[in-house]
């Protein structure tokens, strides 16, 4: 396992936890609703290629929940400041699910610090006539089952006994997710009108069996972002970086290598 560290850092008056590991070009991974307070295998694999930063969003994990956190716009401005603060000129920005939505909100505001953008099963837009899954009406087990294509992975997750801290973090993450995404449900009205502003190279990765945001969302997103590429990952649910780790790593590394301006 690559060396990694957990660091506290304060941005916009909010103290957050940032996991960091690896070396090479900078990559910031914006986690989804479930958070990312533990160093996961996908982070380890990314750390073989990049200097990986995985911040826990304000309101998630072991990060503080600031009074100013009312919506995705707040998180977007927070991350613009975060990108100014980490001492990297430019980063490869990756976002999964709610984190993908967040990456889009950041990128439409300013892509100055973004070298490439990778969106993995990203929220943020609405596609008429394609119902999303309702993670707020599913019970805990349904939520896990509907997250994975491979039900063995789901069952392993369901069978695991979380520590008290993990249970508390899961609840905190769920609360913050609701605050950001309850209404409109996992999108913002303005965002999809302005996605054409994103001019940086953009890769969209999507599981073919995503039950939360069906692949039609990826197709719609690809059309809204000029020059973006869409890769559908077969037999995969909402978390390609966990369920199809090799495909995820191969997709991301090939994309960043092809689109890097600096030394990679």
């Amino acid at each position, binding site marked *: 396992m690559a060396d990694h560290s957990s660091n506290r850092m304060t941005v916009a008056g909010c103290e957050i936890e940032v996991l960091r590991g690896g070396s090479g070009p900078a990559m910031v991974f914006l986690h989804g609703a479930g958070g990312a307070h533990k160093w996961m295998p996908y982070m380890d694999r990314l750390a073989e290629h990049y200097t990986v930063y995985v911040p826990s969003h304000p309101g998630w994990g072991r990060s503080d929940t600031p009074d100013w956190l009312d919506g995705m716009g707040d998180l977007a401005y927070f991350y613009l400041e975060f990108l100014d603060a980490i001492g990297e000129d430019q980063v490869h920005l990756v976002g999964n699910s709610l984190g993908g939505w967040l990456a889009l909100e950041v990128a439409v505001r300013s892509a100055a610090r973004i070298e490439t953008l990778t969106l993995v099963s990203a929220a943020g837009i609405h596609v008429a006539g394609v119902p999303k899954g309702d993670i*707020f*009406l*599913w*019970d805990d087990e349904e939520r896990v089952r509907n997250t994975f294509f491979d039900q063995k992975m789901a069952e392993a997750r369901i069978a695991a006994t979380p520590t008290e801290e993990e249970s*508390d973090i899961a*609840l*905190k993450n*769920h*609360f913050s*997710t*609701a*605050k950001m995404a*309850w*209404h409109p*449900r996992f999108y913002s009205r303005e965002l999809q009108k302005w996605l054409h502003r994103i001019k940086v190279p953009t890769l969209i990765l999507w599981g073919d069996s995503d039950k939360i945001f069906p692949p039609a969302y990826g197709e719609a997103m690809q059309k809204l972002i000029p020059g973006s590429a869409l890769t559908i990952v077969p037999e995969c649910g909402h978390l390609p970086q966990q369920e199809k780790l090799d495909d995820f790593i191969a997709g991301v590394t090939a994309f960043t290598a092809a689109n890097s301006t600096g030394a990679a």
Partner: protein
Amino acid sequence: MKFHFFHLMPYQDIDPDFLEDNKSSWITLPNTYYDPKKGSKLYHRYLDELELADELGFDGVCVNEHHQTAYGMMPSPNVLAGALSRRLKKATIGVIGRALPIVDNPLVIAEEFAMIDNLTEGRFIAGFVRGIGCEYHASMTNPGFSHERFREAHDLIVRAWTEPGPFEFYGKHYHFQYVNLWPRPYQTPRPPIWIPSQGSTETVEFAAHPDRKYTYVITFSPIASVKKNLKAYRDQCEVYGYECPPDQLGWAMPCYVAETDEIARNEAAPHIESLFNRFIMSPAQYKLPPGYSSLNSYKAVMANKYAVRENYLTCDALIENGMFLCGSAATVAEKLEEYQKEMGFGNIAPMLQFGTLPAELTEKNLRIFAGEVMPKVRHLGVTKETVAAE
């Protein structure tokens, strides 16, 4: 003591096996289960029952608000309050309550309540609630802002009722350049406000505050919890430096009275069990959306309440824990007397129709309650002010 017949208006003609194919009677229960021909008959029957209560001498009748459910047919209780307002001769109408946070324009509630207050010449009680968790799924209101929106909507409505307009109101969630209520409420300075609750420290502190002194009504709770919460309210009044008058305390509970304890139990059992095991049923994540309560109270509720609710609640268990007041008139009056002396409430809101309880038993229940229970306990919890007003 004042008696307010509280109707929940369940869609009781539903296929009794509806939970075999559905896990909830809220939000996702297909509305194809609702037959408008049967529903319209039920509306009229229920309104007749509320009007009968007026004739029988109840002090008031109450309706409330729920959405997308067979549990109650009152997404807009003000429509029914409007229908009742020209029919009731003496009784007050309590809308207990409207869910303030789930509307985007709380002035609509201020306006409609003021209209009912005018129509009834002041025989109106305004109830304010946050609304149960299910309403946040139904309305898409973000549960994370529920508390903020409740407080802000409350402030807006009370100011609209009591301050000369026009004035401007700029809050975090509600923004109005012009607040200028037409009509103003009939009662001065405003209608009485009830806060139905299942007990939370924040609500107690809010409702008991000397600036408000709202009537705190505990609903759907085991008697131990009713006692604990009403005591918490009385204690809070003392902290604020005044003694809580009976008027400021209320208890709402399903209630059934018959010729004997045994008859009451036998007649009520299937119907009270339908309420607690079918009409009220929804999974925890329906009732408690994330952010609706604080992290700590969410954890506490999940640990306690829903562990209990997993089990089938029998009529006997409900009588035993005091969630259901049931028996002969003598038994019910005796319990009310005992509880009143202990808890000091001056209002009760018995739900004398519940679940599948049919028309004839509802009418019998109303008549026995009015004829044989009310006279025995009416003298309890009467303050000097109340006597003077009458």
